[in-house]
């Protein structure tokens, strides 16, 4: 099977803008899913609201496109009621970190056996480019016209602190690494969180001096810091620049998890 077989062909073309990174993230995710040997009928995609959350509509399995921020709560109901199903959630920075923040924390705490892919484009894309909880300080958006003055959320640190079993961050540049991280997340029992930093040329790039799509991807790549290198820098007492973010596998552990399939389907 190929990852292309997971696409719902009669829904194409998609709504994403030219240069959007979401397609890359969806491809990486489906490529990882395709290696798992799962049946399509046992796999469910769930999402909230936003550009990222339109992804399940393009996938051929059962899918639930829910309300803004609440995807994890809906996914919890699906997984608990039928643990046989593999549940994957697509979300974005606004959906997950702002309106859905509490559900995110508690899904991590419960360590429920689902995998979450967060397409973090640091902006509200679908509504036209408003600042989000991950918009970097100083960046321009329609609601931060003088530059964002709030500190950005580190979603991976949050997931680790709240108890997720698997946490990783990559970017839309690191497609092979991202695919491997998603696969590791799918394989890890318990809550897996994969953050994919991605470009939004339409609503972030053009307001923040990224003239070409590639400029923003270069920026994402250039400001990422491998976890191993970050750890070395800390050991050597070097200062980590504020605008850098850590990429790589950031947590892999085996805390007790909920919603694991034990071989017996619920009703």
């Amino acid at each position, binding site marked *: 099977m190929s990852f292309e077989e997971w696409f719902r062909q009669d829904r194409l073309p998609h709504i994403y803008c030219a240069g959007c990174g979401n397609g890359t993230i969806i491809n990486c995710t489906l490529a990882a899913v395709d290696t798992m040997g799962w049946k399509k*009928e046992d796999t469910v995609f769930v999402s909230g609201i936003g550009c990222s959350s339109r992804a399940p*509509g393009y996938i*051929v*399995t*059962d899918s639930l496109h829910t309300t803004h921020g609440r995807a994890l*709560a*809906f996914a919890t*109901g699906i997984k608990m009621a039928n643990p046989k199903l593999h549940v994957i959630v697509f979300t974005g920075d606004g959906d997950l970190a702002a309106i859905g923040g*509490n559900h995110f924390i508690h899904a991590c705490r419960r360590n429920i056996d689902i995998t979450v892919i967060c397409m973090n484009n640091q902006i509200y894309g679908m509504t036209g480019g408003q600042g989000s909880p991950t918009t970097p300080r100083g960046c321009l958006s329609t609601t931060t016209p003088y530059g964002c003055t709030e500190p950005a959320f580190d979603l991976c640190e949050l997931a680790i602190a709240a108890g997720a079993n698997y946490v990783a961050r990559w970017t839309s540049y690191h497609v092979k690494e991202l695919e491997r991280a998603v696969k590791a997340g799918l394989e890890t029992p318990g809550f897996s969180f994969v953050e994919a930093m991605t470009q939004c040329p339409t609503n972030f790039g053009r307001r923040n001096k990224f003239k070409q799509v590639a400029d923003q991807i270069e920026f994402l790549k250039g400001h990422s810091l491998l976890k191993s290198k970050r750890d070395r820098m800390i050991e050597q007492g070097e200062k980590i620049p504020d605008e850098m973010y850590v990429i790589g596998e950031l947590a892999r552990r085996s805390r007790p998890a909920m919603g694991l399939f034990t071989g017996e389907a619920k*009703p």
Partner: protein
Amino acid sequence: MTRTEFWQGNIASAEGALAAGCRFFGGYPITPSTEVAEHMAAKLPKRGGVFIQMEDEIASIASVIGAAWTGARAMTSTSGPGFSLMMENIGYAAMTETPCVIVNVQRGGPSTGQPTMAAQGDMMQCRFGSHGDYAIIALCPASVQEMYDLTAKAFNLADQYRVPVFLMADEVIGHMRERILVPDSVAHEDRPAFVPGTPPFRPGSDQIPGFPTFGKGYGIHVTGLTHDERGYPCATNPGLHANLVKRLVSKIENATRELADFDVINPEAEQVFIAYGAPVRTVQQVLHDHADNRIGFLRIRTVWPFPSHALALFPNARRFIVPELNLGQIAREIERHTDIPVLSVPKLGGDLHTPAELTAIWEAGP
């Protein structure tokens, strides 16, 4: 064979749900409905079901909707502020035609209001609380027996009509204890069957589409966006949106007579009490105290869709008297359906109307 129990109303509601085959409960503690959740937490795991305490009421109803798509009969219970928090996802359930049951043990509002006192202030909210046009079914119990019977019935209606069904109880009925006859089994209606290969949101002749359970290989997409018969987003097509919303409303409103559940007492009377929920008990006491066939009583269990045809069953009526634990929410609905004067008798604060109050109104005449 039935057995006799002496139960609290909230416990009876939970037991009615279990008898109906409820296998998923997602909830959050809130007075005065918490006993429903506590009882389900104790009983569901032993019956192979799932109880989960969610982080808030928004998540509770979301988890219930998710569970329902796996085929499980699923419910939540709440009160006051929790009910308000559920509103957005209740609209999602209406739009996606997800069967689910919501028990609301009503307390005094607005806001935090009176957590331990009875009210019926959410009767309009349960009908109209989420944005946009839609329709739901709401049942109002007036005894511990009906907490059981109507909760079980709510699951059947939710499945048959693919709609959120509300058990609109109140603190008095939820917390009172009385004798109840528990049947060995309750009636069971299945969800309308889905025909594989057909568009998942194509309605049958009764305007209700078959239910395509997740995990069966149907590969269906469910969205709260306006969607076509395939379930695909189609949010900028005016005609399609209008037809979808009209169908969501008419599949319930057109079934008003089938759904109607009321008692007509003394139909020749000129003055007729109309009540649902706890005020039913006060009117029953008035009838008990005065064995007088001039006291009419329309006692309603299915409040939404409102059974307006029942009003005509009192041909001599010169006045409808409507005691409610709110400022006349259903009295206003009744006014909409009749030219006969409607006297709203509101009661706020948590106390019930006394039989003497209602008797005095009746004796004063129209």
